[in-house]
C-alpha cells in the first residue's frame, strides 16, 4: 500500500488493478489526504464553485424502464406527461426571472416524440439568457434512431440549433456486467462512450457521471473510472466528474439491494475519483447525494465543486429523496468547511465570488 500511496504522491497514473486495490484497502483518511493533495495541485486556491441551475424533465414517458428508476412511466399511465415547447418556454422564462444560469434538460426515452421536437426545443430555449445543457447519451441515441441519422449528424443538428454542452447522465456504471442486469434496454458502455467522443470531437463539452451503491463491485467502479479516463485522454472533452449514490425508494432495483451507501462509502468514491481521474479538472461533491453534512466534508476529500442548486428536481424526488437549498446556504457550508464559495457557469468559469 505504501508504494501505491507514494506513486499517487508522485503524480503517477494508477492502473486498473491498483485502483481496485486502493478502493478495497486504502485507508479512509489517507485517501482524503491524497485526493486533497491532487486537488490543490490542480486548483491551488481554496475556491469551491457551484452553479445556480434548474432541472427540466420534458417527459417521464420512457420505454427502457431501468430497474433503478422511479421516474419513468408508460405512455398510458395516468401521471405520464410530455411538455410542449410552449410549456418548456414558460419554464425557462421562469428560470430566467430567477437568475438561473443553466437549465439541465433531460427526459425519458419517449419514442413518439418527433426529431423536430428536440431541435425546436434547443432552438427556442437557447433564445433565453439561460444556458441550455441538454440530452444525455441515451437521448441522443434515440434521436439518431428516430431520425435515421448518424450520431454525428444528430449532434451537428443539435449544435446548429444552439446546443453547446451536454450532461453526463445515463452512464450509471460503465461495465457491461452491471448494465445487463440493471438497465438491459439502455445503450451499452461502448455506445455511451462513442456518443461522448463524437460530441467532444464537435467541440461539445460534457460531464461524466456514475451511479454507484447498488449491485456493482469495486472492480466495476474502477472499470467505469478507467473507461472515462481513457476517453478523456483522447478528447479532453469532459468538464467534470460527478458520482451519485443510488436511491432505493419506489424502484425495482431497490428491492434487490440491501446495502445502504454510507457517508464513508461516498467520501471514498469522491477521493478515488479524484485520484484515478488525473485528467479531469473538476470533481463534484454533491451536497444532495448524501446530505449537506457529508457534502461539506467531501470538500476535504478532493472535490472542488458543490454541483448545483437544483431549483427543480424530479428524478430523485420520485425515488423518495428531496433536497433543497439556497445560494446562501451552500455558500455558508463552503465557508464553514474552510473554502471560498463562487458561482460558476456550466463551463466552469467563475461568475462571481460570494
Amino acid at each position, binding site marked *: 500500500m505504501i508504494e501505491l500511496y507514494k506513486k499517487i504522491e508522485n503524480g503517477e497514473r494508477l492502473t486498473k488493478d491498483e485502483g481496485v486495490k486502493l478502493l478495497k484497502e486504502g485507508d479512509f483518511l489517507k485517501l482524503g*489526504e491524497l485526493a486533497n493533495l491532487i486537488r490543490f495541485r490542480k486548483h491551488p486556491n*481554496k475556491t469551491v464553485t457551484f452553479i445556480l441551475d434548474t432541472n427540466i424533465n420534458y417527459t417521464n414517458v420512457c420505454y427502457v424502464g431501468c430497474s433503478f428508476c422511479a421516474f419513468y412511466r408508460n405512455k398510458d399511465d395516468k401521471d405520464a406527461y410530455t411538455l410542449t415547447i410552449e410549456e418548456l418556454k414558460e419554464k425557462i422564462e421562469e428560470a430566467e426571472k430567477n437568475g438561473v444560469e443553466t437549465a439541465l434538460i433531460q427526459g425519458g426515452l419517449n419514442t413518439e416524440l418527433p426529431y423536430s421536437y428536440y431541435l425546436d426545443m434547443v432552438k427556442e430555449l437557447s433564445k433565453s439568457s439561460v444556458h441550455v445543457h441538454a440530452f444525455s447519451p441515451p437521448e441522443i441515441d434515440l434521436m439518431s434512431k428516430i431520425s435515421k441519422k448518424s450520431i454525428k449528424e444528430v449532434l451537428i443538428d443539435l449544435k446548429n440549433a444552439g446546443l453547446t454542452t451536454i450532461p453526463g447522465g445515463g452512464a450509471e456504471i460503465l461495465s457491461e456486467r452491471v448494465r445487463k442486469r440493471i438497465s438491459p434496454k439502455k445503450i451499452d458502455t461502448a455506445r455511451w462512450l462513442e456518443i461522448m467522443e463524437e460530441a467532444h470531437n464537435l467541440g461539445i463539452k460534457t460531464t461524466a457521471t456514475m451511479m454507484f451503491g447498488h449491485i456493482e463491485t469495486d472492480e466495476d467502479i474502477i472499470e467505469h473510472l478507467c473507461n472515462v479516463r481513457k476517453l478523456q485522454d483522447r478528447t479532453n472533452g469532459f468538464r467534470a466528474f460527478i458520482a451519485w449514490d443510488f436511491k432505493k425508494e419506489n424502484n425495482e432495483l431497490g428491492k434487490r439491494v440491501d446495502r445502504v451507501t454510507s457517508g*464513508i462509502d461516498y467520501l471514498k468514491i469522491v477521493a478515488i475519483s479524484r485520484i484515478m481521474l488525473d485528467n479531469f479538472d473538476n470533481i463534484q461533491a454533491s451536497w444532495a447525494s448524501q446530505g449537506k*453534512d457529508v457534502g*461539506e466534508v467531501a470538500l476535504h476529500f478532493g472535490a472542488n465543486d458543490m454541483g448545483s442548486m437544483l431549483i427543480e428536481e424530479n428524478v430523485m424526488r420520485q425515488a423518495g429523496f428531496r433536497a433543497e437549498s439556497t445560494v446562501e446556504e451552500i455558500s455558508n*457550508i463552503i465557508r464553514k468547511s474552510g473554502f471560498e464559495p463562487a458561482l460558476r457557469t456550466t463551463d466552469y468559469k467563475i461568475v462571481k465570488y460570494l
Partner: protein
Amino acid sequence: MGLDAIEEKIKYGEPIDIKDAKEILSSFDLIKIGKIARSVKYKKSDKKVYFVFNKHINYTNLCVSKCKFCAFYRNGEEDDAYTMEIDDIIEEIAKMPKGIREVHIVGGLHPNKPFSYYVDMVSSIKKHFKDINVKAFTAVEIDYFSKLEGLSYEETLKTLKDAGLDSMPGGGAEVFSERVRKKLYPNKIPYEKWAEVHKIAHSLKIPTNATLLFGHIETDDEIIDHLFKLRKIQEETPGFLCFIPLSFHPSNTPLEKTIEKVDAVKELKVLALSRIILDNFPHIKAYWVMLSPKIGQIGLHFGADDIDGTIGQERVTHAAGAKSPLGLAKDNMVGMIKNAGFIPVERDALYNEIRVY
C-alpha cells in the same frame, strides 16, 4: 507551531498546550487533524469500536431549571408534560429484548418529587433487572436531590450507590464558562459544583462520563478551556470512562432564530480535539443521536472509539429537532462500525467486552 509539530509532540506522548489546541481548532487541514486524533485512538483501543445495547429513559420533562437552549422541558400544564412512575419505568425496560446491558437515566428537575422517588427508581430497577447497569442522574440532578433533603453530595451519592447506582452520565456540564452559563442556563450549577459532584462520585468508585455542549454562543477558547478543565479533574480524581462532545440542536428552543446548527467539519474537529487533549480519558464517543449516524460514523476516523448504543426512544435531542432515528438496531451498529473499517465490540456499561463481531 504547525500541525506537524503538534503531531510530533503527540507521537512522543507530550501533552499539548492551549496554543496547540487553538492551532488545531483553527486549522484548515481537517484530514490531518483526523489523522492525529486517530493515532491517539489507536494507542488506546487499536481498531476496536465499542457499542452498548442500552435503553434511554427520560423519566420526566418537568423541569425547574428552564435553560434557554432546551427544547425538552415543560412547566407542568402542557398537554405533553409527563412524569413516569416507577412502574412505568420498569415496564419500559421489560419491553426491551433480552441482552440489554445499561439503562441511561436522565430527567428534568421535577418540582415536587421527593428524593425517595429517585432512590426507589434505582433500587426497583436493580431488583427487577439485576444484570443491567444503572447509569443515572447528571451532576445537575445530584445537586438538586441534595437540596431536596438537605444532604451533602457525598451523602446523596452514597444513598444512591447503596440503592444500586452503578455509574453516572456526563450531562449538565454544557460549557464550563461563567459567561455562557449566565446567559443560557443561569439556574444550572456552575463548573465548580459539577466538578465536585464528579470528584466525589469518583472517590466513591462510581465511574462517570463527561460532556460538552457546543455550537451555540461559546467561543473556541471556551471549548478548549472546558477540555483542559476535564483533563485536570481526571488527573486529580480519575474515574471518567468516556467523554462525549454534544453538538447543540437549536430547533424548538429560544435560540432557534439566532443560531444555526453547527456544521459537520466543526463537529469532527471538536471530536478530534477532545481525543487529543483528553489523553487521560479511556474513551471518546461519537454520539450518533447528536451527530447523525453519518457524521457519527465518520467520527470514528476522528478519534472516537465508541458510538454509544442502540438507545431506543431518546427524547431530549429529538425534542430539539434532531433528525437521527430514535433508535438503531444492533445489526446496524455492527454494520456501521465494520463499514468504517473498524472492529465492532459490544461492551457493557463499564467497557467490559461482551462480544467481538
